[in-house]
Structure formats: structure tokens, C-alpha cells
């Protein structure tokens, strides 16, 4: 794992990726820090992070698009399979390297509230609490980005999908107000989700029967629930959409609350996508 980690890290700094990522992140946060903390003299650093979080839409795909797609394209994944290391070690090594590249500019950001505190009153606890949450949210997006990269051998495609998914995630709370809140609409949406789960299983395992059975069971469960208690489906879709938003969870920290459930939520998202990435890599052996 350390070999993969060192190798990945070196390649990020060899190419411009790590620098572009860091520069974008620092520039964007710097601009908002200037607007809020310096121009408007607001003493909450968390507002800066809240506005700055939109930058993930751009920088996460920049960093993660090549992480596995490129290995596939250059056929270097063959080497990884033949080396005496497990796919879990490969994924963990790659992910830790991504986190390291992300942590470096974030360490610089950590200095900001401290500097501002020299010139006025800054709520340091909420500032650092939200920096931690900002780190976790970014870490979750990096895991998501790596998984998307593992699905294709085309970097551009990985980047495009990554941008679309994160952007959708950013606006999903706003969008949730416009989607159908009726029980019928929610049920149809759930059926579509069941279908997507089936497609994902089919893609990851290559096992049509398994995908078909899982999809059918999920759809049957949705139908049964709907028939027994259709009232529970009222407004379910908007709820699901906002629950899936990683950005929405961050708002609690911005409002000055250290939300432990959000920490657990980010942790689960990271674990989920790392698991899927391992499966996606492992699946290539079976295709």
C-alpha cells in the first residue's frame, strides 16, 4: 500500500495536477475570505467555506478523473493485478494519496482563521469545526470521484460524469422543491432508483440473474409498501434528494453546530465508494 501511495503522490506532483488542485482551492477560498472576512468584516470563517464549497464541482474531477481510468487506458492495471498486493491495498493507497494532495492546501486554509483572530474576534471553534467538516465532505467527493474513474477508461468521460454528479448533488436540495411530492411520483422515482441499482449491479458483477433478482425484489418491496401505506410516500422524493446531498449536511456546521451524524454520514459515504471502487477493480478480473 505504501508503494502505491508514494507512487501516486509522486505522479501528482510530477504532473501539474496537485498544483492546479491546490491553486484552485486556495484561490476560491481566498476570494470568499476576502469578500466575507475582510471586506464585510464578518467574524464567521464557516461562511467562507460554505460559499467556497462549490469549487468541489471543478477540482474533485480534476484530481480524480485519471486515478483509475488512466491505468486502464495505459494497460498498467495489468501490472497492479500481477503484483503481490490486493486490490484493497491499491484503492487505499490511491485514496490516501488523493487525501494528502487535498490536505496540503487545506492546511494552509487552517492558518486563515488564526490570522484573522489577530485582528478581531473570530469564532475559532466553529471555524475549525467547519474546516474539519469541509475536509470530510471533500474526502467523500474524492471517494465518489475515484469510483467514477474506475468505471471507465476515458478520463474525459470520468471528469464529465464527476462534474455532473457533484453539481447535481449541489443543487439537489433546491431541485427537491420542484420535484413531485405526491406519493405516486415518489413511488415512480423509487422504482427508477431500483432499476438503476439493478443496472449498477449488472455492470459491477456482470451477473445478469443477480441484477435481475435484486432489481425485482426492490421493485416488489416498493410496490408492496406503496399499496399498504401510500401516505408514507408523500413528499418522500424531496426528502431522499436532500438526504443524499453532501452539501446539505455541511450547513449544520456553517450554522455553528458540530453535527456528529454528519461526520458518520460522510464516513459512510467514503467507505461505500471505496468499497465500490474495490469491487469495480476486482470485477475486471471476472469480465
Amino acid at each position, binding site marked *: 500500500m*505504501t*508503494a*502505491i501511495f*508514494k*507512487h501516486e503522490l*509522486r*505522479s501528482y506532483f*510530477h*504532473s501539474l495536477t496537485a498544483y492546479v488542485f491546490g491553486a484552485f482551492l486556495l484561490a476560491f477560498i481566498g476570494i470568499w475570505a476576502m469578500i466575507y472576512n475582510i471586506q464585510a468584516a464578518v467574524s464567521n470563517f464557516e461562511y467562507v467555506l460554505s460559499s467556497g464549497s462549490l469549487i468541489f464541482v471543478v477540482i474533485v474531477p480534476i484530481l480524480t478523473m485519471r486515478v483509475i481510468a488512466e491505468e486502464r487506458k*495505459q*494497460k*498498467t*492495471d*495489468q*501490472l497492479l*493485478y*500481477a*503484483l*503481490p*498486493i*490486493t486490490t484493497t491495498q491499491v484503492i487505499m493507497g490511491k485514496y490516501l494519496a488523493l487525501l494528502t494532495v487535498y490536505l496540503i492546501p487545506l492546511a494552509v486554509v487552517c492558518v486563515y482563521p488564526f490570522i484573522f483572530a489577530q485582528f478581531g474576534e473570530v469564532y475559532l471553534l466553529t471555524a475549525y469545526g467547519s474546516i474539519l467538516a469541509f475536509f470530510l465532505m471533500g474526502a467523500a467527493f474524492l471517494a465518489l470521484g475515484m469510483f467514477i474513474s474506475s468505471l471507465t477508461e476515458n478520463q474525459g468521460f470520468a471528469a464529465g460524469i464527476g462534474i455532473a454528479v457533484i453539481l447535481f448533488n449541489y443543487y439537489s436540495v433546491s431541485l427537491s422543491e420542484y420535484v413531485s411530492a405526491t406519493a405516486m411520483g415518489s413511488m415512480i422515482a423509487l422504482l427508477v432508483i431500483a432499476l438503476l441499482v439493478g443496472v449498477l449491479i449488472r455492470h459491477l458483477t456482470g451477473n445478469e440473474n443477480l441484477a435481475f433478482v435484486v432489481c425485482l425484489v426492490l421493485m416488489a418491496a416498493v410496490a408492496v409498501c406503496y399499496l399498504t401505506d401510500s401516505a408514507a410516500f408523500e413528499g418522500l422524493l424531496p426528502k431522499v434528494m436532500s438526504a443524499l446531498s453532501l452539501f446539505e449536511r455541511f450547513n449544520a456546521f456553517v450554522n455553528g453546530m458540530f453535527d456528529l451524524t454528519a461526520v458518520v454520514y460522510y464516513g459512510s459515504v467514503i467507505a461505500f465508494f471505496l468499497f465500490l471502487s474495490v469491487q469495480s477493480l476486482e470485477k475486471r*478480473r*471476472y*469480465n
Partner: protein
Amino acid sequence: MITVEHLTKRYGDFTAVDDLSFEIQEGHVYGFLGPNGAGKSTTMNIMTGCLSPTEGSVRIYGHDIFQEPNQAKRLMGYLPEQPPLYLNETPEEYLRFVGEAKGLRGAGLAEQIQAVVEQTRLREVYRKPISALSKGYKQRVGIAQALLGDPKVVILDEPTVGLDPLQIIEIRELIRQLGRDRTVILSSHILSEIQTMCDQILIIARGKLVAFDTPEGLERALLAPSEIALTAEAPANQVEQVLGEIDHIVDTQLTPQADGTVAVKVKTDGDSIYDVSRAIFFAFARRNQALLEISLKKANLEDIFLELTEGTEAAPAPEAQKEVDET
């Protein structure tokens, strides 16, 4: 020692590898020979743990490649068909990464890298980006990578494909060197290559193992006794008489031609084809009778290969023609 048992790989309805079983002993150079698409690469990918079989097992010195992958993979070095190189790195960085991933550290790593760089003669390009190297050098970096960790078995998939003749000679020389102190398995669709480098040949066609023997063994076992075709300007009974005096002839077949000559097909017992043809030549010369044509057909692996793999769409490259024509 590698034991492959009942290996099968299916992609949907297509069977790439079909119930393959064989055993590989220590200290030989083995060659997988087969037309393109015969299942050579698939077999190698399964043997090295890059691909999972639909059925069957592979054991490397007793370690199952899927039950104990790490122990098994430590004993093997693998060069896939396309060398898995990170093009923006130098051989130095690349080899260090592979060495570390194989569990080498510190002085041991430096020593090993030193040794494989010497062996594959990469010294002069050691600090150049891999993307700037020639195909031959890239291939050598790929082989160097496979040699790190001092594996007992080195598996090379089409190691000379796409190289120019000089590079091919260099790589072959390198492989011959490797064969001195470890087991080497290589694949090729070029017969002459396998013939010159390997002391054991596995012929694979349509995913099946059709032959497994030494090059000489294959020739002996499968080819009819060697043949001499000649045309003599003499009556048939005289020709028969002349040929009757010569040793090592197993069978003769005379066909009188319309112009008064006789076409003859002579079958020899195989070992002494040049001696027999020489004897025939002088026997006719002594009698002042002309031989209008004499041509030898020596046993050759090409025929075996074609015979065994017949029916597959891809024909092998027509190299290694051992036909000798004399007039």
C-alpha cells in the same frame, strides 16, 4: 513448478480457454505457440492472477493463485503483451515503484534494481523518461520489472512482437540468458522464435492444448519420414535399379513422364537426408545419367503447427521455411 488443471475461461458463449491442463517443471524455457486468438494471452493472464478462470486452478509451487495470491505472485514475474509502463516516469522511478510493491526495501531494493538494470542493459536510459525510449528499450524496462524480486518463474507474453530485427535478436539473447537460472515461459505466434529459444513447446489452438513436447520430439513424433523429390532422365527400370543400391531409402514412388523422364518421390528414414541425396546424385552421375531436378523436404515444425492448428482462421507467418532446393 506450475500446475495448471482443467483451466477454462468462457466469455458468454465464446470459450477462450478450453479445459487446459499441463505441468511446468523448473529450469526450462517453455514456449506457448499458437495462432492469434488461440488463448495464449488469456492463459497467461489467468496464470498470473490478472484474470479469473471460469473453472480450474493454477498452482505455483503449491500456492493456488486465487487462494494465496500474494505467495504465488511473489514467485512470478509477468510481462503482459503491452508492457505496463508509466510513460511519464523514468526507468529509475518505475523500477523503484515495482520493487517496493513487490515488498523490497532499502539496500535490498537498490541491489536488485542494480542487478536487473545490468542484466537488461538499461544503464544508459536509466534517467530518461520512458515515453522517450525506443520500443526495444521499453520492452526491456518491462522485462526488468518482471525480474525484480528475483522470481523463480518469468512469464513473457509475446516479448518480441513489434520490434525491429536487431531488437528481436537482443531480446532473444536476453531471454536465453534468463533461461539459464530460472524457468521462463513465453508465448509467440512465430514458430521460428519458439523453435530457437524454447526447449519445451506447448501448442495451443482454439483454447486447447494440442501438443506438448520438445521441438525435436514434436518433429520426430509427428512428421512423416523426410522426402526427396527428383526427376531423372532415364528409363524407369534403370532409375529403380540405381535407387535400389542406396541405403536409408524406405520407399520410392516412380511416375514416368510423357517426355521420357521419370519423377520420383523418395522417402528416407529421416536422419540422413543430405547423405542420401548426395548418394543419389553421384549414383546417377557415375552412370552418366542426368538428374534434372532434386529437392529436399526436411521435417519442419511449420507443418506440424499447420497440421495441429488446422481449421483456425489465422495462419502463422511463413517464416522458418526449412525447404532446401537444389537443381
